[in-house]
């Protein structure tokens, strides 16, 4: 079991985290920004489309396309009001940015949800938080109680603490009163989501960016970041969880797209493997860390992506093979067990990666198993798990070789304790 950290540092940032000193309360929020504007759908789209605003839950899907899909399906279904869902289930224990954001700047997130609801004609706004971070649900409850938005019904949900709880369809299952586990769908939520209604389901940070663009104006928003990727993004910076599985500490920062990574990483992290994108992400080789930039394009070139912004450094000297084995073991346990290839494949994969950590050259079998699980489930859990394991074998190939030759800094006796 791997659990999120209970205490996370948060540093002031250029946009989303710029009001940290003012506190989370509505009065301070309104003193800064004034009344929330009510752009119609065209005006809202005109604001965000040129900024190429992408969802921050991991998949990086363009927000404007989601909104357009909801609008299109709204038109076809008279009387069927769209639904807005703020997803802060944050099942990834390495990530704390959505929880932190709702803790320190809840009204920016809720502004974004209200902006979307008004533009789409939605009456219900659902907010989903996680059971293992109960203070977040309380923060949302308090913030919602302070707001006065005629015509908007707030609905708060608590997702079970598990890795796959934040997956879009799992969130919709929870809202429907069923266990919040991934289910098969061949239609996006934006076309047919909650109760079959067109549903704008996005990550909490995504809604805060929507609000930031409208509150500050597209020009000031785009003054941050690069021409290709305007704006900022939240990251959770962590080190490996302790032996009992709990993440210790961690820091949430807001960086501009294109910013160099060395500005927020410590010296030890600059010469160590870096897991970017959390447990469904990819390893970055130590030689690429000093020149790393927080840009989707740049990360793609080195086989990585930002995902939901969880960044885990092995600056403490941990071995990436042993750590990967530990994380895959955890991810296998976190399979909902609904889909055969995941239920069977992830434990098999975990056993082989553990074998690798113990010194057996299981790479061939690991490769077979990653191929067998990919694309064969109701959600992306097997795919994400396969992605991380594959990046160990490819990006960190030299380290794996060293590990097998027992030249790795980690000695066999150090990894006996994995899981």
């Amino acid at each position, binding site marked *: 079991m791997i659990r999120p950290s209970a205490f996370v540092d948060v540093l002031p940032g250029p946009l989303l985290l710029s009001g940290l000193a003012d506190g989370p309360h509505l009065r301070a929020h309104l003193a800064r920004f004034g009344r929330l504007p009510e752009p119609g759908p065209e005006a809202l789209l005109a604001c965000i489309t040129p900024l190429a605003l992408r969802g921050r839950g991991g998949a990086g899907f363009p927000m404007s396309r989601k909104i357009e899909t909801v609008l299109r399906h709204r038109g076809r279904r008279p009387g069927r009001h769209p639904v807005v869902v703020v997803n802060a289930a944050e099942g990834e224990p390495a990530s704390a940015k959505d929880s932190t954001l709702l803790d320190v700047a809840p009204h920016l997130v809720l502004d974004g949800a209200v902006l979307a609801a008004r533009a789409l004609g939605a009456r219900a706004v659902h907010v989903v938080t996680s059971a293992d971070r109960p203070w977040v649900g309380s923060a949302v409850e308090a913030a919602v109680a302070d707001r006065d938005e005629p015509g908007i019904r707030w609905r708060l949900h608590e997702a079970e603490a598990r890795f796959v709880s934040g997956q879009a369809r799992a969130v919709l299952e929870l809202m429907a009163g069923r266990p919040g586990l991934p289910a*098969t769908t061949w239609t996006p939520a934006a076309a047919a989501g909650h109760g079959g209604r067109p549903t704008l389901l996005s990550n909490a940070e995504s809604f805060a960016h929507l609000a930031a663009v409208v509150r500050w104006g597209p020009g000031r928003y785009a003054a941050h970041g690069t021409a290709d990727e305007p704006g900022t993004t939240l990251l959770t910076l962590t080190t490996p969880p302790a032996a009992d599985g709990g993440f210790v500490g961690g820091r949430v920062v807001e960086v501009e797209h294109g910013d160099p990574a060395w500005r927020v990483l410590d010296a030890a992290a600059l010469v160590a493997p870096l897991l970017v994108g959390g447990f469904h992400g990819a390893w970055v080789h130590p030689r690429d860390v000093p020149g790393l930039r927080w840009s989707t394009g740049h990360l793609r070139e080195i086989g990585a992506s930002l995902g939901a912004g969880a960044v885990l450094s092995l600056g403490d000297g941990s071995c990436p093979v042993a750590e990967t084995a530990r994380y895959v073991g955890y991810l296998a346990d976190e399979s909902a067990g609904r889909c055969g*290839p995941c239920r069977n494949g992830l434990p098999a994969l975990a056993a082989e990666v553990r074998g690798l950590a113990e010194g057996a050259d299981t790479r061939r079998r690991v490769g077979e198993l990653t191929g*067998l699980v990919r694309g064969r489930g*109701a959600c992306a859990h097997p795919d994400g798990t396969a992605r991380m394991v594959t990046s160990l074998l490819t990006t960190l190939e030299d380290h794996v070789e060293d590990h097998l030759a027992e030249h790795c800094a980690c000695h066999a006796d150090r990894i006996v304790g994995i899981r």
Partner: protein
Amino acid sequence: MSAPAGVGEQVLRVDWPQCRARGLCAELLPERIALDEWGYPIVLGPVPRGERTLAREAVAACPRRALHLRDA
């Protein structure tokens, strides 16, 4: 593994939570469906026009209603 589907082609899709590895699909449509080491279907590319009837039969035969034929 699977070739991209062309215009007008259909694809077999598995409703994974429904599938219980009964394996009838692979018996009825070995051209398009293999089984993995745990007995779950591996779909081998899109269904050409000539195989559509066979594919529909495999879909209908699934006791779990877990196999679907959909437009690519």
